[in-house]
């Protein structure tokens, strides 16, 4: 402890350089935290554990292929199936194709949907208001705020993949993990487009036990294996991860970027510590002359390096904590809302960020520290000229 003042003063003998170095650690640390949080959010359960019991059945070939509605009865009869419902992606355009007007639009079975997604709560209007109106829409609370809608407001979804325009009325508002979607009775699409009648995009199953969640995918897929529309059944999490994988190997990309950032911090810190050690060759020789042993010199220089990176990490941590709500709010109002819903201050991400930064500080300080400790004292003293 008695050497702390010396370490601290040495660190700030070139204030501008030290501050710039800390800033150059803070920014990459911040980016590592953002990337890590997004990566963790992809795996986060936003249903409060209730999504664990949900399974999704779709066509084995792709989501673009429909499966017959007739499967519904056969699935519902399987042991372990508590509820089953239909969810059909609609697409369409609201106003225009700008990113701020993109949100999820699904045709569903209003009387079944809330039984399957039982973590969802109605915060304005009632489920009955919605289910009793064929053109009623259940709208996410965030979307209501974005467009300033009120109950009873009407809006039009212009069909594109399904060439039918839907005029819908806001009947209820929900709060859940992704509050930027709208849900309406699938029959309004079938009425406007009879060709799609009896066709289903996905069945959503609520299983009655963890054992059923394990068993049902094999059972359901075996049931339709030799039909004209074979199925692929997976857990909700696997289904969502399938969308993530459409973006490419996100994990590899994020890990790669984080590694590159880690290396950048390493080089910056190493450069600073090498400069600091080089400028103090004589001073270190003097300290050794006074009796400071090699291990102590090594410790002092490493402590400086660690202190520098720790300061950067903790400033970055503070900044990230301050910026996090703003960042999350921004993403929740963007087309990435589905991914952002799982964002939180994951302790493992923050600890990993701090750990990487401290490790980098240690590694960056080692070479200058060893060099300084190894140099002979007369050589160090001669540097004066």
């Amino acid at each position: 402890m008695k050497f702390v003042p010396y370490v601290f003063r040495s660190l700030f003998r070139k204030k501008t350089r030290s501050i710039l170095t800390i800033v150059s650690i803070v920014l990459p640390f911040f980016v590592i935290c953002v990337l890590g949080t997004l990566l963790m959010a992809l795996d986060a359960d936003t249903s409060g554990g209730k999504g664990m019991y949900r399974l999704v059945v779709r066509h084995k070939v792709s989501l673009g292929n429909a499966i017959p509605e007739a499967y519904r009865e056969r699935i519902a009869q399987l042991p372990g199936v508590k509820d089953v419902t239909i969810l059909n992606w609609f697409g369409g355009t609201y106003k225009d194709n700008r990113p701020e007007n993109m949100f999820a639009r699904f045709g569903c079975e209003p009387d079944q949907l809330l039984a399957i997604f039982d973590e969802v709560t109605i915060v304005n209007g009632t489920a009955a208001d919605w289910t009793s109106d064929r053109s009623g829409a259940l709208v996410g609370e965030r979307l209501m705020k974005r467009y300033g809608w009120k109950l009873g407001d009407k809006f039009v979804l212009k069909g594109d993949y399904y060439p039918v325009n839907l005029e819908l009325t806001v009947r209820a508002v929900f709060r859940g993990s992704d509050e930027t979607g709208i849900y309406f009775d699938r029959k309004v699409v079938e009425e406007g487009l009879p060709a799609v009648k009896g066709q289903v995009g996905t069945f959503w199953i609520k299983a009655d036990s963890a054992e059923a969640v394990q068993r049902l995918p094999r059972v359901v897929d075996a049931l339709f294996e030799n039909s004209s529309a074979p199925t692929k059944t997976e857990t909700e999490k696997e289904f969502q991860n399938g969308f993530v994988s459409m973006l490419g190997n996100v994990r590899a990309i994020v890990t790669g970027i984080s590694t590159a950032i880690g290396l950048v911090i390493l080089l910056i810190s190493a450069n600073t510590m090498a400069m600091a050690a080089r400028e103090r060759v004589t001073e270190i020789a003097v300290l050794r002359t006074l009796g400071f042993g090699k291990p102590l010199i090594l410790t002092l220089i490493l402590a400086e390096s660690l202190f520098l990176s720790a300061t950067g990490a903790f400033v970055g941590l503070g900044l990230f904590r301050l910026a996090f709500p703003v960042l999350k709010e921004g993403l929740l109002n963007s087309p990435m809302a589905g991914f952002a819903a799982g964002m939180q201050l994951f302790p493992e991400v923050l600890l990993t960020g701090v750990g990487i930064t401290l490790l980098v500080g240690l590694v960056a300080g080692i070479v200058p520290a060893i060099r300084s400790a190894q140099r002979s004292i007369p050589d160090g003293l001669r540097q004066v000229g």
Partner: protein
Amino acid sequence: MAEPLIRIENVVKQYTRDTQVLTVLDGLSLEVEKGDFVALMGPSGSGKTTLLNLIAGIDRPTSGRILVGADEVSAMSEGALARWRSENVGFIFQLYNLVPVLTAFENVELPLLLTRLSKAERKKQAETALAVVALSDRLDHYPRQLSGGQEQRVAIARAIATDPALLVADEPTGDLDSKSGEEILVLLERLHSEFGKTIVMVTHDPKAAARAHRLVHLDKGVLKEDVRAKGEKGEIGVAAAAAIAAGR
């Protein structure tokens, strides 16, 4: 005759530069008595700073033995040598070599950090050392706020803070004007006479050497002349030092 504090026995020091072997000290033997004030003189490259470094335990001889008191400095491990230096030797450099980010007090306290003294004891000892060099009013000044002479006095306070028996000085007045240099020499003389320190000082300056009680002249790594002042408290004298330095 007083007992020798330093015994240098047939010391050889060689450096290898590329493939060339350079002999800086060539079989040198010398004894320095406890409480003596010795000036090492000689032309550049004569080996005087190398000899000082060997005595102070910051360099090792290629062969031969160096003993300071009962300790064989030339046989100590690096760690033991560092501990030995912190307890037994005070260093005074030509360019003062104070740590620029520390105050005068903190610079003097530096060697005390290696001891087991409490904070209060360290404070007392550092303040005493600064009082000896008449800088009690400059405790919180940084080196950049001090004159060259004051910086060297802080360096001397740092050298005596742990109360070592041996002080080694490498051109202590070499970077100072004559007035400040004189003050430093008076201070060294005081440390020798009042506090009984054994001082070995490298210098080119006959005026500085004149204050010593013994003058050792080196040339090309060998002892050329070894002159002792007459009388108990005698000094070499400027004329004699100048003559020896000039090789007459």
